[in-house]
């Protein structure tokens, strides 16, 4: 298992390098710069000398290949550079925000798993029932409703009409502030998990080994626990892994709507003002997060089904 884990971790390195190169090239060729963004709202007329000095201060007057070399040298030393806007190390800027994003992602995923997986199971065990129909209608709605719109509806009912929850903000870490953004972000994976679990359970229930287990006189509970759950979990863990891995990226819209101080929001702001070191660092963190989660999922696969280790 250790060799398998190390092999998977080493496979991440070329991916990270490729992503770093891609981000760097994209933001080197697209028009617009940090200096021009300072006057983009038309509220400031910056003189050309100052703009030139700003470009020089941040090394933007150097050739692209020199900047890329410096970036990679910094990267291998875990130095992501200095933010143009915050004038602080990018690692500190991201570090200030990453916990808020993690908190939101974990809360949304826990909500999706705790509600979605049992719903999928129950619906599959009673196919065609009212509960099954309601679950699937809810799942389709959850998948098709734009998160932004859902968030606004939740805000309207739970904050404005009922007054139970705050409509926006971080609240210094108060869990009450986490509820609405986590539910909004968690609805899509919840719906996906419910549908996946239901489909997986229905498919496995028709397999020969399930019929064999029943014919041996095994109780329903034992069949579900020993045969059904174990096989369905591979499918469910795959879905959880993919959803959890991409959640930081998906959270951008939710963070903006609820003014949640995560790295998604930081990314949007930084792209607009061309704070390239922060953009590069933030995307890299999102990519590494995705890779780590998927590597972790692969390790869990191997634990659930040892045959996977051989492939």
């Amino acid at each position, binding site marked *: 298992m250790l060799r398998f884990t190390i092999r998977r971790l080493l496979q991440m390195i070329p991916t990270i390098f490729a992503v770093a190169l891609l981000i760097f090239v994209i933001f080197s060729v697209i*028009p*617009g*710069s940090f200096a*021009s*963004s*300072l*006057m*983009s*709202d*038309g*509220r*400031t*007329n*910056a*003189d*050309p*000398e*100052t*703009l030139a*000095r*700003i470009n*020089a*201060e941040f090394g933007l007057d150097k050739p692209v290949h020199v900047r890329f070399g410096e970036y990679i040298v910094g990267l291998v030393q875990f130095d992501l550079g200095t933010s143009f*806007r*915050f*004038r*602080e190390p990018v690692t500190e*800027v991201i570090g*200030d*925000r990453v916990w*808020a994003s993690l908190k939101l992602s974990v809360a949304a995923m826990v909500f999706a798993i705790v509600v979605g997986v049992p719903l999928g199971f129950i619906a599959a065990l009673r196919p065609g029932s009212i509960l099954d129909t309601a679950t699937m209608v809810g799942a389709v709605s959850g998948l098709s409703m734009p998160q932004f719109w859902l968030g*606004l509806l939740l*805000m*309207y009912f739970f*904050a*404005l009409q009922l*007054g139970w929850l*705050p*409509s*926006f*903000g*971080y609240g*210094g870490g108060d869990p009450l502030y986490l509820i609405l953004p986590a539910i909004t972000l968690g609805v899509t994976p919840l719906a996906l998990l419910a549908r996946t679990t239901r489909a997986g359970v229905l498919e496995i229930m028709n397999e020969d080994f399930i019929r064999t287990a029943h014919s041996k006189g095994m109780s329903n509970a034992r069949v579900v626990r020993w045969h059904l759950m174990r096989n369905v979990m591979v499918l469910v863990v795959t879905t959880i892994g993919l959803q959890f891995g991409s959640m930081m990226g998906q959270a951008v819209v939710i*963070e*903006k*709507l*609820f*003014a*949640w*101080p*995560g790295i998604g*929001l*930081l990314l*949007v*702001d930084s792209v*607009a*003002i*061309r704070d390239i070191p922060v953009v590069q660092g933030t995307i890299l963190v999102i990519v590494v997060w995705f890779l780590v989660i998927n590597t972790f999922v692969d390790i869990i696969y191997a634990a659930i089904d040892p045959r996977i280790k051989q492939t």
Partner: protein
Amino acid sequence: MLKSLTLSAALLIGTAAATWAQDPQSGGTLNFVAPYGSSFGTLDIHSTPATQDEFPAKAIHRSLYDWNSAEGKPELELATNVEVSDDGKVFTYTLRDAKFHDGKELTAGDIIYSYQRIAHPDNAFPGARYVSGVVGIDEFVDGSADSISGLKAIDDKTLEISYKEPVAEPGYELMRVNAAIYPEGAAEAADFQTSPVGLGPFKFVENIPGSRITVEKFEDFYEDGKPYLDKINIVLLDDASARDVAFRNQEIDVSVLGPSQYVAYQADDALKDNILEVAEVYTRHVGFNPDYEPFQKKEVRQAINHAINTDLIIERLVKNKAYRATGWLPISSPAYNKDAVPYAYDVEKAKQLLADAGYEDGIEFEITATQNESWGLTIVEAIIPMLADAGIRVTAKPVEASVLAEVVPAGDHQAFMWSNVSGPDPYATMKCFYSETTRAACNYWAFDNAEFDAVFDEATAEADPAKKTALLSQANDIVQEEAPSWFFNYNKAVMAYQPWLHGLQQNATELAIQNYEDLWIDDTAPDSRK
């Protein structure tokens, strides 16, 4: 008799209550909104021109001058008196008694330190131009001098600033928030960016990146009895829909409104009485590039102004959240010509002007614009059919805001739509049309007109403020006649506020930026604010 006495007593009590209700009350917490982005940048306000960063800075810092919203002009803030030399070049300030948050007394040395830091070439700070007219700045910037010779501390409380040319009102530049005064040497401290110290009415308490900054009352603030509030949470909330819900839910005390919300709030009985409006110093326009041959003809530029039904667009698309522009200088500018008449919507006249210019078959051009709802593609799409009626074929080229700010100074366009600062200083504003001002600086039209230059030169040499203003007004009339832009509108900034909040100022330079020390909340505020 008894009835009459009772009535009189009731009236007296009522009057007293009304008077009492208008007297500022101390205490409470304000939830103020910074709506122009999802984060604050650095807390070193010298290094940033972003309006968003001014929200906390205005609470923490003070500059030598401040903007007087009521009178519409800069006024002394950190000085009690200024003496100006006869030639209008030397300003001698008597500084007021004021303390920084760390207890240090304000001295002339602090101001010199702050201005030299802003101007230092190694720092690349956007405010460098505020002191670019001071004697000795060139030597300081090129490294041949360690200090700016035009900044002198006569003693701890007397500061002398010498300019190269006569300056009518240095306050227009020195009132800027990013020309704030720091305690001498303080910015070199490692923690200054995360824990700034200033002269402002509130002390920095906490920054939750991406969420809010909290400041609390500075007991030693130099204005007696101020600030009234105990604490301000300056929260980040740039999404208009979320801001609307939060405002209606009483979680925030102010909300900047866009055109759609402006209409909705005006129609809502519960909200319509608490809306603050001001004509801000921004002009929305479509600028023409004279490098594109048709725009070299004044008749063509005037034809475009005549071919667009500007009033209709302001009514239907901007929902009257704007003032019709006549020329370049806005309504709130001291040099605004109140008698100026905007270009009339007259398609036949537009066609005639095009024919006079030799373009009987019309012209075609491209407008580079952003997605901005008030001065972007929405407006361009609306004027396309209007211009087509006059034989002018237009296409839109969408770009991002930072790209627009790159292509316009470079002249890499045929026409552009933008909202540009047009005040409050009419001299700095009109200088953008001076032929010696480069396109990269702010002469985006590459405007070159001998008559304008002559009037502007006269204004430059004029020391008398009233005469200077009159000359600048005359210069603005020339710009209107020359029509380097389609003059669209001047921004009407609109802010909704909760009924318990008082003391807001109609700040024409930026409505959302308030002098927090004047704000106070009354007893009707929710418990969370008390």
